[in-house]
């Protein structure tokens, strides 16, 4: 190892340390921004070190790639709406996967030994399925394609055949690396597999899928690291892989479902049992809602994806301030799977300047619910569905929910009586203490704000 090579490797050690310390600082909201900065410095260091490699003869293609990618990335980061974060993360996962696929494919010309060939197959497989899987997830999230689960007869058999095909062509590739048709087959089947893996997953399960794809994009980088013998790719890739797996676990737990159930069952399309819900819908006008809120001293707000769609977070913040000036205590209850990705609601409310210590997790708000005078549900549905506690026949039975029905009064802000993203009937709407405030969430809340003024 000559001096430059040693220097490069040492730089990688330092940037690994920066990634790790950066992630550690992400553990608290006070230090998170510094942590992200530290991780970015680590990345810059790793890139500079990689550029010093003496194997590099010409720089123009590298620079072109960095400039093109950098400009696209920077523009996307500046322009994206906070409501669209899930789509953007999905797309970025896909790019990461594709990059790893390309690195794996490019590494073939220098590959020696079976182990390297196996890791090349892995980086192509994981990278490829991450790429197309993420594109499908992006399509579902942005609703450019239907967000429902796509199921058909014999799906499991088709998928098993694809997996068998990937295995067989992977083995053949390792045996005959000089024969490119096996490589093309691995690439093609991996891309198809990504599509097949994500289409049976319904829209309501997107937080799980996006976490899982995040994990895959890390694992793909990791496999690419094995393929080209690079430590820093392995370390950074596995950190990301671990992060994605943990988030996936948290999301599954929050829905009381196993990962395999999410991946294979096509939950979103299952029509719920022919259960009749008793009681009647009681609509309320903005004016009447105002009188109840005016007298309330403890208010809980439970936001869901509907708040994001209506872009109501800013006017919600306004209402919060008015209620607080009126002497009420206001808290937010955030369900782990509210929104389309982990922590989605928190980001939206942070954008509207709601302090993060006012956002309570489900387990913190539920014990307080009995003391809440008014619980306002804004565009959330399944995460406040009492059927998850009460009705064993409900598809979401056993899922932990925010128990808004235990508050004295519940306002549900809703566009119409259509069922939620998961397509499940919600008995909350028929409860004695529930009032439905129909209409666009932003306008309804704006109306309340005006009543107070």
């Amino acid at each position, binding site marked *: 190892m000559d001096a430059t090579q040693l220097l490069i490797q040492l730089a990688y050690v330092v940037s690994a340390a920066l990634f*790790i310390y950066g992630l550690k600082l992400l553990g608290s909201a006070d230090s998170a*921004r510094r942590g992200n900065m530290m*991780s970015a410095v680590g990345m810059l260091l790793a890139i500079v070190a990689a550029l010093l490699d003496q194997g590099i003869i010409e720089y123009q293609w590298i620079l072109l*790639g*960095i400039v093109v990618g950098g400009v696209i990335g920077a523009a996307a980061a500046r322009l994206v709406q906070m409501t669209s974060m899930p789509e953007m993360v999905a797309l970025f996962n896909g790019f990461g996967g594709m990059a*790893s696929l390309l*690195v794996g494919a490019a590494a073939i010309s220098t590959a020696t030994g079976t182990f390297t060939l196996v890791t090349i197959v892995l980086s192509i497989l994981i990278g490829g399925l991450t790429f197309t899987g993420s594109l499908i997830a992006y399509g579902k999230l942005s609703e450019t394609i239907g967000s429902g689960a796509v199921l058909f007869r014999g799906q499991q058999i088709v998928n098993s055949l694809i997996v068998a095909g990937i295995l067989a062509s992977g083995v053949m590739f390792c045996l005959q690396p000089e024969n490119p048709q096996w490589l093309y087959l691995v690439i093609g089947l991996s891309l198809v597999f990504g599509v097949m893996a994500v289409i049976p997953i319904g829209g309501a399960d997107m937080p799980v899928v996006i976490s899982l794809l995040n994990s895959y994009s890390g694992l793909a980088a990791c496999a690419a690291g094995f393929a080209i013998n690079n430590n820093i790719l*392995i370390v950074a890739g596995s950190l990301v892989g671990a992060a994605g797996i943990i988030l996936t676990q948290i999301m599954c737990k929050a829905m009381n479902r196993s990962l395999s159930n999410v991946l294979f069952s096509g939950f979103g399309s299952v029509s719920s049992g022919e259960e009749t819900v008793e009681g009647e819908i009681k609509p309320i006008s903005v004016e009447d809602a105002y009188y109840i809120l005016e007298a309330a001293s403890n208010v809980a707000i439970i936001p869901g994806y509907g708040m994001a769609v209506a872009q109501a977070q800013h006017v919600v913040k306004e209402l919060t301030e008015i209620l607080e000036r009126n002497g009420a205590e206001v808290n937010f209850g955030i369900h782990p799977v509210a929104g389309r990705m982990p922590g989605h609601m928190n980001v939206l409310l942070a954008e509207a300047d709601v302090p993060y210590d006012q956002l309570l997790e489900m387990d913190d708000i539920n014990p307080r619910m009995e003391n809440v005078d008014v619980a306002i549900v804004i565009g959330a549905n399944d995460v406040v569905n009492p059927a998850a506690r009460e009705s064993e026949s409900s598809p979401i039975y056993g899922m932990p929910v925010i128990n808004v029905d235990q508050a004295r009064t519940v306002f549900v802000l809703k566009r119409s009586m259509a069922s939620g993203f998961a397509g499940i009937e919600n008995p909350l709407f028929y409860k004695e203490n529930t009032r439905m405030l129909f209409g666009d969430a932003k306008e309804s809340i704006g109306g309340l704000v005006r009543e107070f003024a």
Partner: protein
Amino acid sequence: MEAVFLTFILMLAIFLGFELINKVPATLHTPLMSGANAISGITVVGAIGLAGTGQQDMANWLGAGAVALASINVVGGYMVTDRMLAMFKKKEG
């Protein structure tokens, strides 16, 4: 031996990752994810070596494509994470 050595690193890094991420509060899960996304752009480091061989062959073009894609991740991921984290504020007073 090299393979064993690399697998050893992989194992340690995964355990470390689990320990670190478990401590991240739910409030920060979106920035965590986009930040992790930026880190997964580390593939750019591997791609740089492949894009600069001066060979004008397939591997070179694949490498250049990988540099561009991974750069989107790196730049976009870090910038959007920073943008989000700048919005997180504590209640004053």
